[in-house]
C-alpha cells in the first residue's frame, strides 16, 4: 500500500503550514480515488497521488468532465492548488483519523530530518 503513495518532499515552511492547516487532511487523502472540482466547474475523478504544501495535487488515471459534457482521460494530471474548489472525501474515510495520522507522519518527517 505504501508503494502506491508517492513520497512528497515538503520544505520546512510547507511542513509547518501543513501542520497548522487542513492541508494535513489532503495529504492524508493520498492514494484515495475521489473527485476534485475546480473553479472552472470541471470535475476530475482519479486517484490522488500526492499533495504538496501549496495544495497542488497530482492525480493519476484521471477522468476529466468539462462543462460541455466532454470527457477526457489522462494517465497523470497536475492540478494547481489555488484552482481547487472542492475535494470530495469518500464516505468511508474518517476525517479525524486521517488528520491524526498525517500529523504523525509530519512529526516523523521532522524527526528524520533532524537526524
Amino acid at each position: 500500500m505504501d508503494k502506491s503513495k508517492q513520497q512528497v518532499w515538503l520544505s520546512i515552511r510547507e511542513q509547518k503550514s501543513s501542520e497548522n492547516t487542513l492541508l494535513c487532511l489532503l495529504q492524508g487523502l493520498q492514494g484515495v480515488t475521489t473527485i476534485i472540482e475546480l473553479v472552472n466547474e470541471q470535475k476530475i475523478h482519479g486517484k490522488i497521488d500526492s499533495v504538496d504544501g501549496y495544495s497542488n495535487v497530482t492525480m493519476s488515471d484521471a477522468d476529466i468532465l468539462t462543462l460541455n459534457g466532454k470527457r477526457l482521460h489522462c494517465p497523470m494530471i497536475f492540478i494547481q492548488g489555488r484552482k481547487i474548489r472542492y475535494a470530495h472525501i469518500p464516505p468511508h474515510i474518517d476525517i479525524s483519523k486521517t488528520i491524526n495520522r498525517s500529523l504523525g507522519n509530519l512529526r516523523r518527517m521532522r524527526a528524520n530530518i533532524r537526524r
Partner: protein
Amino acid sequence: MERDPTLDFASDQFDALKALYTKDLKPPCDDIQPYDNLASYWAAVQRQTNRKTDRASASNQPPKTAAAAAKSARKGIKINDIATKSARTVNKEKKLKNKAKPNVLERMKPLNERKSVHIWTRSYDKLRGICRGFVAAFDKHMNVVLVDVDEVYTLPHYFMRSAGGKNSSKVLAETASHDSTAAAVLHLLANDPSSENYSNLKGIHACSLKSALQYKVTGTDQFRRIKNFDITEDVIKTDQSFIIVRRYLHQVYLRGENIVMASLANVD
C-alpha cells in the same frame, strides 16, 4: 497610644506571628516591598544575587602578560557567557520548550460539536451557491470540511446546453400544480426580472437559491437528474441566463478561497 513591645519591630520581644495578624501594622520604613508569601520573597532574593554575580563577572580585571591575557580572554569570554546567562534567560528557554505548539486540531478546539451552517460560495465575481452542512473541521484559511451537505448552486446557462432549457421548466410547471411548496418556489423564481438587468440577477440568485435549498426534492422523474462520477445532481431551474442545480454530498473539503460567507443554519 503606647507601643506594644511585642509589636515593636525594633524591640527584643518582637512577635512576628502576632504582627502578621494585626491590622494596620506597618514596618518603620516607608518604601518597603511587601511580599505575599515566602516563595516570592526568595525569588526576589535570587534575582538580586544573580544581578550581583553578573556585575561581579563583568568587572573582572584582565591578567598582566599578553599570552596569559589572550588565554584568559578566551576562557574569560566562556566563563562570562555562562555567568551572564542569568536565571531569567534559562527560565525563558525552559518555558519555550514546554509550550505546546498548536497544530490544526488544537486550533479547532473551540468547535466542540458539529454546527449546521449555510456556506455561501463564490465563482470569480458572482455568488455561486449555498452549501448547507455540518462543519467537521476548519482552519485559518477558512478551508472547511463539511459533512452531510445539501448544495444548491447556479451555473451560467451557456455552459450547460445539454441540461435542456424548455423541457425542464415545463416539467416544473406540471408538478407545481400538485405540490404547494413547488408552487411557492416556482412563483418566487418566476418573479425574477429579465436577465438584461445583470445587477438584479445577482440579488435574485440569493433568494432563489435559499428557497431551492428549502424545497425538498420528491420523486426522481420530476426534475432532470444528472449523474456524474457517483454524484447525482438535480437541475431545478433553467432560464436564459442561468440554471440552478441541487445535489447531496456526504463529505467535502471546501477551499477557503471560495467562501464568501458562513452563517448558522437554524435547525427546523
